[in-house]
């Protein structure tokens, strides 16, 4: 199958259809660029010849995919750039392509449905008109900054001409996704149409452009006064200065890309050609930095895991919708599962222990939807429709039609076993049973049940709605069909499934709890509280580990560690600080007291902690942030290694993606195994060995690391 096809219409308009082979989404490959270049040359040549009947009078850029116009470049191609010059050449080629589209005597119309990201938006901006379908699939973004890069095809300047300098910079620097309605409001696109009419209207507009002959409608700034005020040299200069000053990014590398984007745009506004030159030079430089390359590698890994067919049933991809599900419990996990399911159109029978508990879950779901759809024009209607799907009960009724049953009871084996046997007696026998936990193995929960082959575990350590990852654990008795079915369901819910081998704790919980526990060890060794937090936010985590404990709740962390301790021994023994704090009523953010005090929307470090934990403030010593980072990361790394050795995960790539998507591991660091590779396995082995001498067995590396250290010395080939 060709990635680009040309379909001439009777009207003289040709449809240029982009269709990346064997993929749900379109990505602009080098081959694709080449085809586009050839096509443009052909139509230019045609125009120079005598008029003929099969002449292409106008072109519509259309996608052959349902959810993607063009979702970006083929990222793996970017990894081939080893010299800045190679990136620059690539950039010049794209600039040339877009220029040709823009300056072609044949009008171009972009008919956009689905994701139009990065280079996709740049191509669309080069067209004379952009028509978008008004569905929630449509998303436009200049998101190169997410990969440590800048736009590479003159898109920044085109964006500034259409939106004005300020708004263009906002989009470029934030990488913000704009939906169909907003894109119309801000003038990023020319027309918003129903999905069904997209092609017909695009064609009509293309025909109008042929007859009008004047398709050079470029300056569409909102009104002359606005232009005079904002788009004069003095105002622009002030704007650029202001925005430069506002950029406060923790990491130098991401600041680079932002500064370069600003720089290139500023030059481009004064001189188009010099701007394009600057853009290409900067792009080339950025593309070979380790920062951008790691971001790209992480993106590739995520895409791989997302579409991995490791667990899908071969040939029979379950596409039918999930009509009904049952959710048991009143935990956060129950609330987020109920809202996630209802959000995706599944009817949910919610079973709680009493009315008050059910009311709280309903409220939680309502709050979730109100937040999520706050900007919707039809917010009340959307809210009503979603909530209509959830019906609360205190008995096991309405379970018979549920294809999956989600149990999200408290972390207690006996309760979980009882609920499973109760649920089994009221549901259809082939319903998939999902037990939510952060540490209990599904094999234990399902050990006495009738259909252990239908039981799987699911990790609910984080908030499901926030995380893209759903970790599923399959026991030895779980059937392949069940795994395939649940993987299909998770995908339909818009999440990325990661299937792991069942055991105590899920992969991410083990790594996460080991990391949090180590932070407590550091605290007890006399490391300054703020230093621990700062070290990890400096590394790129959203929050420090002690904030994270507060957020998760201290009981959850302690109970989780206790279960792990039971199974894995000393290594994961909960730090005594947890008990001390829980006994003092410091349960974390939920109780408004933890390591921090929570007053309204603010949190402040609670100094009385030192007294409670008998830490003598005079003993606190300054250690370097690097040392703290290393200690905490190596605790994650070691647990990851042990998981891999135990066969919990299929490989290092899955582990890294799980950490990035599930734990907020910084994308530009890639994950624990990328972290090992950055030092080399041998070096990591040495460090772990030294730590284990000083701090004991919890740092003892598994034999796997030794094998890698004496072998390839790395987990990834690239």
């Amino acid at each position, binding site marked *: 199958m060709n990635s680009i096809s040309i379909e001439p219409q009777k009207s003289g308009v040709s449809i240029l259809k982009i269709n990346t082979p064997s993929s749900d989404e379109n990505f602009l490959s080098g081959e694709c660029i080449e085809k586009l270049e050839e096509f443009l040359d052909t139509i230019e040549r045609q125009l120079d010849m005598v008029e003929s009947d099969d002449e292409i009078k106008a072109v519509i850029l259309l996608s052959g995919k349902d959810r993607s116009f063009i979702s970006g470049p083929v990222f793996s191609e970017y990894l081939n750039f080893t010299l800045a010059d190679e990136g620059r050449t690539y950039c010049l080629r794209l600039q040339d392509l877009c220029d040709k589209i823009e300056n072609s005597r044949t009008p171009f119309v972009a008919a956009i449905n689905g994701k139009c990201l990065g280079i996709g938006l740049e191509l669309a901006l080069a067209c004379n008109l952009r028509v978008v379908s008004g569905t929630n699939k449509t998303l436009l973004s200049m998101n190169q900054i997410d990969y440590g890069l800048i736009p590479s095809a003159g898109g920044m300047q085109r964006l500034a001409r259409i939106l004005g300098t300020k708004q263009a910079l906002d989009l470029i620097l934030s990488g913000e996704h704009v939906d169909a309605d907003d894109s119309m409001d801000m003038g990023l696109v020319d027309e918003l149409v129903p999905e069904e009419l997209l092609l017909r209207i695009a064609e009509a507009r293309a025909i109008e452009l042929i007859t009008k002959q004047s398709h050079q409608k470029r300056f569409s700034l909102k009104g002359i006064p606005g232009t005079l005020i904002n788009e004069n040299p003095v105002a622009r200069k002030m704007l650029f200065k202001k925005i430069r000053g506002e950029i406060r990014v923790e990491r130098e590398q991401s600041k680079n890309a932002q500064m370069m984007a600003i720089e290139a745009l500023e030059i481009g506004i004064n001189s188009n050609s010099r701007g394009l030159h600057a853009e290409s030079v900067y792009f080339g430089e950025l593309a070979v930095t380790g920062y951008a390359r790691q971001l790209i590698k992480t993106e590739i890994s995520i895409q791989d895991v997302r579409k991995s067919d490791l667990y899908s049933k071969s040939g029979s991809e379950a596409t039918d919708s999930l009509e009904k599900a049952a959710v048991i419990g009143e935990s956060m996990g129950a609330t987020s599962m109920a809202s996630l399911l209802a959000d995706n159109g599944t*009817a949910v*029978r919610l079973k709680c222990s009493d*009315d*008050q508990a*059910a*009311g*709280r879950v*309903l*409220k939680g779901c*309502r709050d979730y939807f109100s937040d999520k759809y706050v900007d919707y024009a039809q917010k009340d209607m959307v809210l*009503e*429709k979603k*909530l*209509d*799907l959830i*019906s*609360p*009960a*205190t008995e096991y*009724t*309405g*379970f*018979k*039609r549920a294809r999956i049953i989600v149990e999200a009871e408290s972390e207690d084996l006996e309760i979980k076993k009882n609920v499973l046997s109760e649920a089994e007696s009221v549901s259809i026998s082939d319903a998939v049973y999902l037990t939510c936990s952060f540490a209990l193995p599904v094999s234990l929960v399902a050990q006495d049940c009738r259909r252990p082959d239908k039981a799987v575990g699911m990790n609910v350590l984080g908030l499901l709605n926030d995380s893209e990852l759903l970790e599923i654990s399959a026991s030895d008795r779980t059937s392949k069909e069940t795994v395939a079915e649940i993987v299909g369901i998770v995908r339909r819910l818009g999440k990325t499934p990661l299937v792991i081998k069942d055991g105590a704790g899920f992969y991410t919980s083990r790594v996460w709890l080991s990391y949090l526990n180590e932070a407590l060890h550091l605290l007890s060794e006399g490391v300054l509280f703020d230093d621990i937090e700062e070290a990890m936010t400096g590394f790129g985590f959203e929050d420090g580990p002690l904030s994270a404990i507060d957020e998760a709740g201290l009981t959850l962390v302690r109970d989780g560690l206790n279960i792990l301790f039971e199974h894995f021994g000393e290594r994961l023994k909960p730090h005594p600080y947890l008990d001390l704090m829980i006994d003092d009523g410091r349960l974390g953010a939920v109780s408004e007291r933890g390591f921090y005090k929570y007053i309204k929307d603010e949190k402040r470090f609670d100094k009385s902690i030192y007294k409670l934990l008998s830490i003598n403030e005079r003993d606190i010593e300054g250690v370097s942030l690097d040392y703290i980072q290393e200690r905490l990361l190596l605790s994650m790394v070691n647990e990851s290694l042990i998981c891999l050795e135990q066969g919990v995960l299929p490989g290092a790539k899955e582990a890294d993606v799980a950490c990035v998507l599930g734990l907020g591991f910084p994308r530009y660091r890639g994950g624990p195994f990328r972290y090992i590779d950055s030092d080399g396995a041998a070096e990591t082995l040495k460090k772990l060995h030294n730590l284990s001498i000083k701090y004991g067995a919890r740092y003892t590396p598994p034999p796997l690391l030794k094998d890698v250290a004496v072998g390839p010395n790395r987990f990834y080939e690239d």
Partner: protein
Amino acid sequence: MENKKRVAVVGGIRTPFIKAGGDFKGLSSLDLGKIPAKELINRTDISPGEIDQVIFGTVIPTIKTSNLAREIALGSGVPASVPAFTVTSACASANQAFTSGIDSILSGNSDVVLTGGVESISDFPVLFSKKFRDSFFASSKGNNLFQKTKPFLKMGVSDIAPDVPAISERSTGLTMGESAEKMAMIHRISREDQDRFAQRSHELSSQAASEGVFDEEIVHTFIPPDYAKVVAVDNNVREGLELQTLSDLKPVFDTQYGTITAGNSAALTDGGAAILLMSEEKAKALGYKPMGYVRSYAYGAVDPGDELLMGTAYSTPRALDRAGLTLRDIDLIEMHESFSAQVLSNLNAFASKKFAREKLGRSEAIGEVDINKLNVSGGSIAIGHPFGATGGRLIITLLHRMAKRSANIGLVTLSAAGGIGVSIVFEKE
């Protein structure tokens, strides 16, 4: 009756009945329909795709959901491909929805019908006066500000006053209460008898509630937006209501000679009810054990200018004839109590040979009602009366009571405004 197609009642659920302006004041008619409908679909585990038709009744029209049944269906998970319509017949609206469902099944048009009735008296619409509405219409046709404003300038102050929904009978100008006064006088129903009957209603209802008799039929209703308040019981029922308390109340409609008080008439209430009907074969094929079957039903009607709320005395003998039964064969009766006076007048008429001869053209009286079979867990005076929903409650309550007793034949009967009466005969097996 052998080999005849029968309609089975597979399940029925209602919301608690709550005094107007109370806990349900934030819920619309639509909400009060969706809540029991959703719960019924859940409790019966029916696949919504099996439902062929949705029919709901309501009295007070709702502006934004004129086909209320359709909105209830869509909001309850019934597939969009299933048609729905809304009926209205005063207090018999839910019964009308129910019997329309029966007809639909017996005629072979449907196998499974979701029916019910709802009323939100708290959420009644208020109309602008006719003059005001005319002005709006004229204004909308104007092209400029002057033309748009002009129609309103012609209005008088009195035109601003809103029209509230009619509570009086249009053809007679009498309110329901006034009609009930008239009945009490004609049938010589004393104030004391009325109060005693009202007290009985409260006593039986509170007893039934405390024994958990209603638990199976009531869906616990979560009050948005916080869902912290959950309503699970009818809040109009008063435990230990003294006769003296009722006697102390002043007549409402005729303050001089009247006997009708707030105590011996049904209170304004919000609520909803949903019932799932199936053909007998379908119910068996899907493996249901029906609560009961419809044996027959009939409507009757009287001149509203005569005795407005006597409809039940006209519809009952017809329904009994169609069932091939007499009143003596009935084990349990659920009769709607709009007023004590209305119930007692009808019971008089049932027992009266004169009434039978003069009004019904029958030689024998319908029969004496055994009071121990009537409204055994109280009635509308105590439980409340959300107009469009009451008919549904009577059916649901009757079938739940029949299930718990050895009763095999039951009767639901209701007199409605407009002079309409409806009677439905049920059999357990």
